[in-house]
């Protein structure tokens, strides 16, 4: 294939509840170090959640942090770290040919909830409603903050795609590069979800909010006694380029995009559909020109809900029935559910396996749910498998959005 039609990942910037760069994040995944802890949530009190502790002022002034949002702050941190990591000469890059594509689960709930809270604290004085509310809550806001911060004049927008956001953001970046709309894409996903009480209350109302007296055990996908989702924030943004451009500047290449697919269940607002998930994975594999047995590793979406994990386990069993060499892992036991960031972050956590041949385990499986038994599932202990060439990353969301993204080890 022509190098102009091959898209590669040349920079990674991330923040997760258990790490603020790829090296730290990966090590904590291998060591089964959780980033979930108890935090005090408005009205509800102590809840298990994953918060990030990156330095908000590393790339942003205090004033602009105050003017913007937590989602913007996470995005700015990740974008700057990604650019720095890529080694690209930022001063000489044509900023009109840089695009920012960020997947989000939702945006604006945090700011709206805070404004309503403040109004209630002040006798419903509506004149206290902030003039910043609109620019903070327009749905392009997190991506727009990145353009302001990095002086990018190319396109920017977010991709509203529930918890498939991380994969969808990357896929959008890939497509825009292939179309020639941009030369550099800053693409991935972010989430600030635990900053609002509403998401906790809603998952509690659904009976799907994770809880445990030890918060590090609250998120336990595929465990028989799992009780829901630990809500987390985070972000992961990649520098994506055409291989031809990456070669010109002798860039370090983490991985190459091999294939992807997005589809819809068209069955339910919340409950997943394993048949559509299989179709999504198979469509991505076909688009990559691969067989199912070519996939060495699958990162499951696996959120820790009863229905979600059982459906996806069935989907993965069915999708890879013809492969004995495909290993399966998951990441939310370590970091909780980072919502719009989940897909991009979890993919990043597996990328180092191209180099070290080790699969990080899914953690917190005390007793594997019999309905979640999957061939070659890696849990609780890392597994050295040697050569890993293809990784398929699942990321699904409400309203039945499914995404599967396949990356390959880059070889000259």
């Amino acid at each position, binding site marked *: 294939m022509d190098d102009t039609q091959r898209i590669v990942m040349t920079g990674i910037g991330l923040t997760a509840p258990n790490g603020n760069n790829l090296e730290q994040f990966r090590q904590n995944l291998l060591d089964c170090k959780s980033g979930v802890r108890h935090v005090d949530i408005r009205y509800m009190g102590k809840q298990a959640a994953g918060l990030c502790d990156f330095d908000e002022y590393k790339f942003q*002034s*205090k*004033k602009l942090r*105050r*003017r913007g949002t937590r989602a913007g702050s996470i995005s700015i941190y990740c974008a700057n770290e990604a650019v720095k990591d890529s080694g690209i000469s930022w001063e000489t890059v044509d900023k009109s040919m840089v695009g920012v594509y960020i997947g989000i689960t939702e945006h604006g709930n945090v700011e709206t909830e805070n404004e309503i809270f*403040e109004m209630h604290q*002040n006798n419903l*004085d509506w*004149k*206290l409603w*902030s*003039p*910043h509310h609109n620019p903070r809550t327009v749905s392009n806001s997190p991506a727009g903050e990145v353009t302001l911060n990095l002086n990018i004049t190319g396109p920017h927008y977010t991709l509203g795609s529930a918890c498939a956001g991380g994969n969808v953001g990357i896929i959008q970046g890939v497509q825009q590069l292939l179309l020639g709309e941009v030369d550099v894409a800053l693409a991935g996903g972010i989430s600030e979800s635990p900053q609002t009480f509403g998401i906790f209350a809603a998952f509690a109302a659904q009976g799907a909010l994770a809880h445990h007296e030890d918060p590090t055990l609250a998120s336990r996908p595929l465990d028989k006694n799992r009780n829901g989702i630990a809500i987390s924030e985070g972000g992961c943004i990649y520098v994506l380029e055409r291989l031809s451009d990456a070669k010109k500047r002798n860039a370090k290449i983490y991985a190459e995009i091999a294939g992807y697919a997005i589809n819809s269940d068209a069955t339910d607002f919340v409950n997943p559909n394993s048949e559509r998930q299989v179709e999504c994975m198979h469509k991505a594999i076909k688009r990559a020109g691969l067989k199912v047995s070519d996939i060495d590793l699958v990162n499951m979406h696996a959120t820790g809900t009863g229905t979600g994990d059982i459906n996806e386990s069935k989907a993965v069993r069915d999708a890879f029935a013809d492969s004995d060499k495909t290993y399966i892992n998951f990441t939310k036991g370590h970091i909780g559910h980072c919502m719009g960031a989940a897909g991009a972050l979890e993919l990043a956590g597996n990328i180092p396996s191209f180099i070290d041949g080790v699969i990080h385990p899914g953690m917190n499986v005390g007793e594997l749910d019999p309905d979640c038994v999957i061939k070659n599932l890696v849990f609780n202990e890392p597994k050295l498998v040697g050569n890993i060439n293809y990784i398929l990353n699942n990321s699904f969301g409400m309203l039945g959005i499914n995404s599967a993204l396949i990356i390959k080890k880059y070889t000259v």
Partner: protein
Amino acid sequence: MTASNVRQIVLDIISDIAPDEDVTVIDDAKSLREQLDLDSMDFLDIVMELRKRHKVEVPQEDYSKLATLESCVSYLSPKFA
């Protein structure tokens, strides 16, 4: 409330709105926008904080009276009386 108290109230608000600025070097007679990195949205924030913290209302037609620290004190002092 003394003029000094009112001045401190305004400075406290500016410090929160523009936390990167050194408010100890402000010349009371000079335009705040000339000395500090403040834009029109920041002035809206100042008005908002006066209302939230001190129940002091500044109508839109009076916004220009917040141009300098000196004019802030003259304008706001009667409202804190």
